[in-house]
Structures are given as structure tokens and as C-alpha cells.
């Protein structure tokens, strides 16, 4: 049965589906934490600054980079989904798969710019 799955899941639109779904899940888990941290500002700038100092740790910084890339990926894959569902297809067999690789490259580019700004 192993090969029953494999060939069905080694194509770009499957990758786009998984990427969109997993990035969305991780962002949904992260958001409440993000909001709670910003809520620290209620206790004054010092409380927020103490957390921001923690966020300078390399591992936290790396996670932050990941989140930025995830957000960009979810945005770009999401735009593809909206295009698929709202506009006419160029032809009936073309699920705009040509957008998938450029979307990944663009998301990574956002990540590179983010790194360059550090």
C-alpha cells in the first residue's frame, strides 16, 4: 500500500495544500501567545521590554524568523486559493500550480530580508 500514497502526494498542489494547512495551524497556535505578550504593555513598557529582551535570544530569534516565513507562505498560498475559487481558470486543468514554487521563493525572500534587517 505504501506506493498507493506516494505518487498521489508527490506533486506541487499537494505540497501547497500541506504547506497552507500546517502554516495556518502553527500561526493559529502562535497568535494567542503573541497577543498575550503585547498585552504586557498594560503593565507598562518595562514588562514588555523584559519580554523583548528574552526575544533577542538566538533560538527565539530563529523561531521569530520561522513565523515570519510561515505568515508569508500562508498569505501567498492563500492568495492562490482565493484566485482558484474566485476567478476563472486559465484552462480547466490548470489549478495555477505555476504559482506554487514562486510563492515559496517569495516567502523565503521575505525571510532573507527579515534576516538582513537584524
Amino acid at each position, binding site marked *: 500500500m505504501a506506493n498507493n500514497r506516494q505518487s498521489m502526494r508527490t506533486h506541487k498542489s499537494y505540497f501547497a495544500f500541506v504547506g497552507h494547512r500546517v502554516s*495556518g495551524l502553527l500561526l*493559529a497556535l502562535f*497568535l494567542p501567545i503573541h*497577543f498575550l505578550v503585547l498585552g504586557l*504593555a498594560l503593565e507598562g513598557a518595562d514588562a514588555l521590554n523584559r519580554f523583548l529582551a528574552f526575544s533577542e535570544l538566538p533560538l527565539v530569534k530563529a523561531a521569530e524568523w520561522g513565523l515570519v516565513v510561515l*505568515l*508569508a507562505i500562508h*498569505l501567498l498560498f*492563500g492568495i492562490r486559493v*482565493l484566485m482558484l475559487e474566485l476567478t476563472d481558470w486559465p484552462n480547466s486543468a490548470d489549478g495555477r500550480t505555476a504559482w506554487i514554487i514562486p510563492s515559496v521563493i517569495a516567502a523565503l525572500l521575505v525571510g532573507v530580508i527579515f534576516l538582513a534587517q537584524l
Partner: protein
Amino acid sequence: MTVVRGLFIAQRYSAMLLAPFVLIHLALIIIVVRNGLTAEEILSRTNGSTLWFVFYVAFVLAVTVHAPIGVRNVLNEWTRLSGGVVNVICLCLALLMLSTGLRAVFAVT
């Protein structure tokens, strides 16, 4: 109108709102980290600004609609949880996002 169709429409319309919001947010993240992330910097931008207040409230509302519907689909498809349990989890997630999100907006503006 079925519940499923309502949720589908809500998720797509919130996505259309979120797309420009996320673009602005990404641009902001990149600009802000260049100067180093400090509470003073964030608060000086957002404190007392009606524009940022409206933007972030809309952002939080859109994401509160968008994300739990997506999580609901994932849980229904990829777990054995019953539909009722999934609905409760996603409603809780929505309430959590809404409350922490609005609290964060009030904290920084």
C-alpha cells in the same frame, strides 16, 4: 443557507480582508526590527493613534473569524474528535483570540 456554506463564506471574506492586513504587517515587522524592537518604539507608534487602533481591531476581528474555521476543518478531517467537540474547541479558540487580541490592541493603543 447551510452552516457549512456560512462558515465557508465567512472564512473566504475574512481572508480577503486579511491579505492586505498581513502585507502591511509583514512590511511593518521588517521595518521595525531594523531599529531594534523596544516597547518604547512600538508604543510611540501606536499609542493614541486612531488609525492603528482601527487597523488592529479589524485585524483581530478578521483573524478571529478566519483561524478557528480553518482549525475546525483540520480537526474534523484529521482527528477522530466528534463534530460537537470540535465546535466547542474552535469556539473557545475564537473567544481566546478575540479576548487576548482586543486586550493587546487596547494595551498598545
